[in-house]
């Protein structure tokens, strides 16, 4: 039943991708599937997609799990690394060392921030929504305080810049990172003891405890992992913008949550698929880029996103196959 449902949801998401791409290609006269546009979309979808994966993991862990601090933490990681690393490695003389230092420190900050979330939720028994709202303010506030609110300019560092802007076999590196993370998370969720335990814990925390699943350790680990994912998004952002700033991506949080719920993740925990999340993220991205290309306002984009989400709900409730002939022949 569940497998069937999720498959149907996956089919819906893939179908939406195809429909939007076909429509946009037709309307734009092929410009939409031009390599430049595909690369541009691939680069854009990654940071949001990675943030959404973090939110998804928190949601799977159950008990009202959610991570509202991911965007703040991504920015904080970039800000801290951008402020500290230049004191140790010169971006001009040792670009590779600088980049490694930047990546390392960002991940460290992300892990530390995630650890704080995990401890507050596991040890402090705080409601995740409240705990991560508090840390969201805390992380943002730290980033503001450390920089007086202005952007930290990192400048052009070849190796670091490559992470966000270069391509490998014509595929943007951020997109490769995103795919790698989707694959990794999908594999871990499905095949690792950790993943199985996370799903079980999200389904029934009490039974999980009786079954010897270490609830606290699982929560701390999960939120720490969320923090690390946030930091990876932060690195990509820093690389794509050559800078770090506390208010970058202020609209990302809601979009990340939208991506997650559109992927069919249950807010009450215990269910979520990385592959669905991937297609959910690409659907939103493809719609967004298509509207930009055709010159439709981004307000309309928001409206279309909302409508699509409600449609996806309806699709899992009602059989939309009756509409297949309509969807299949656009334009």
């Amino acid at each position, binding site marked *: 039943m569940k497998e069937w449902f999720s498959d149907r949801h996956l089919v819906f998401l893939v179908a939406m991708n195809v429909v939007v791409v076909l429509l946009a290609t037709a309307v734009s006269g092929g410009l939409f599937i031009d390599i430049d546009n595909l690369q541009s979309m691939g680069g854009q979808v990654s940071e949001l997609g990675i943030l959404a994966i973090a939110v998804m993991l928190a949601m799977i862990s159950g008990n009202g799990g959610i991570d509202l601090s991911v965007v703040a933490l991504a920015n904080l990681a970039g800000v801290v690394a951008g402020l500290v690393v230049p004191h140790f490695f010169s971006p001009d003389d040792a670009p590779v060392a600088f980049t490694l230092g930047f990546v390392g420190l960002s991940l460290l900050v992300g892990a530390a921030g995630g650890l704080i979330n995990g401890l507050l939720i596991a040890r402090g028994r705080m409601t995740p929504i409240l705990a991560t709202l508090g840390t969201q303010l805390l992380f943002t506030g730290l980033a503001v305080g450390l920089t007086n609110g202005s952007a930290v300019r990192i400048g052009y560092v070849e190796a670091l810049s490559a992470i966000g802007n270069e391509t490998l076999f014509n595929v943007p590196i951020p997109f490769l990172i995103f795919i790698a993370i989707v694959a990794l998370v999908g594999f871990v969720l499905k095949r690792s003891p950790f993943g199985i335990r996370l799903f079980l814990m999200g389904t029934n925390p009490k039974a999980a405890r009786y079954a010897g699943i270490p609830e606290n350790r699982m929560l701390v680990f999960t939120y720490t992992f969320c923090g690390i994912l946030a930091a990876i998004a932060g690195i990509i952002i820093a690389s794509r913008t050559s800078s770090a700033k506390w208010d970058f991506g*202020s609209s990302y949080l809601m979009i990340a949550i939208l991506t997650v719920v559109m992927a069919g993740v249950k807010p009450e925990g215990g269910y979520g698929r990385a592959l669905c999340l991937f297609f959910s993220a690409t659907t939103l991205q493809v719609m967004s880029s298509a509207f930009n290309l055709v010159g439709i306002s981004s307000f309309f984009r928001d409206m279309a996103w909302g409508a699509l989400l409600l449609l996806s709900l309806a699709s899992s409730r009602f059989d939309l196959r009756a509409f297949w002939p309509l969807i299949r022949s656009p334009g």
Partner: protein
Amino acid sequence: MNRKLICSALALAFLGAAGTLYAQGKQQTITTVVKITGIAWFDRMEAGVKEFGTQNAGIKTEQTGPGQADAAQQLRVIEDLIAKKVDALAVVPIDPAALEPVFKKAMSRGIKVVTHEADNQKNTMVDVEAFENAAYGARINDRLAKCMGEAGKWTSFVGSLGMQSHVQWAEGGAANAAKKYPKMQLVDAKTESNNDATKAYEKAKELLRKHPDIKGFQGGSSVDVLGIGRALEEAGLQGKVCVFGTGLPSETAKYLESGAINGIAFWDPKDAGLAMNKIAKLLLDGKTVTDGMDLGIKGYDKVKVTKGPGGGIVVKGQAWVDADKSNYKQYPF
């Protein structure tokens, strides 16, 4: 169902092949990207953008921007435009630093880049400034000082600590007061209003409680003066406390009338839009802007050209406008 998916994929590939054969028109496109679409300020700018388009055959002008004032959303819009292969971009960056790589990419693909309100932007060909930010802040501060009798407590607001121009105005004002008016005392500087009139109102109330003897407010974001003005009006302090800051005549009208706001300053976004597009056209034609040049736009009739922080130049006009109760009606926006 799988077969249907495969069919769809094939159809997609076919359409793609057809699409690449489709040639673009020869008209050159200048796209203006603003901080956020829909608000009065940038609607006024759009008037300038459209005007330029109608004046210049062979140039297609359009304006777009994100729905939220988020640097990330603006970055995405610009990336999509680069993929769309526009000929020139005229951008009002939310966060200049965040756009450096994308502008670099745009220029490397032969797209002309003009910016506005971003005098620290490295990767731009021309940055157009209506004026010098610090000087603008100092000028507002001078008017405030005169109103306050050059003595007493005053404070400054910014829309957000992340908005560099707002911070420059506040700091320009502070430096000016420190230099010229020793009896003026700056308290709790750079209060954030989050670009929200309600928040500005609440913060102003709190400041009034903390400093009952405060004499002046310098607003940053264009909505700051609205919130401050309302707070003063309610406290019955209009006329007793001075309020100056950036603001739009249409939005501040009723407070200017009531005296809760003493004066506003601004530059005409329509002219800024015209100037950006004009310069973009020059760049497309292979020309550039020189010191003292007349762009044929009010306030930009004798521009000052300096070298920018990167490879490009900074073009500064004298396009600021001071307005108060007596003359705000001359500006229909």
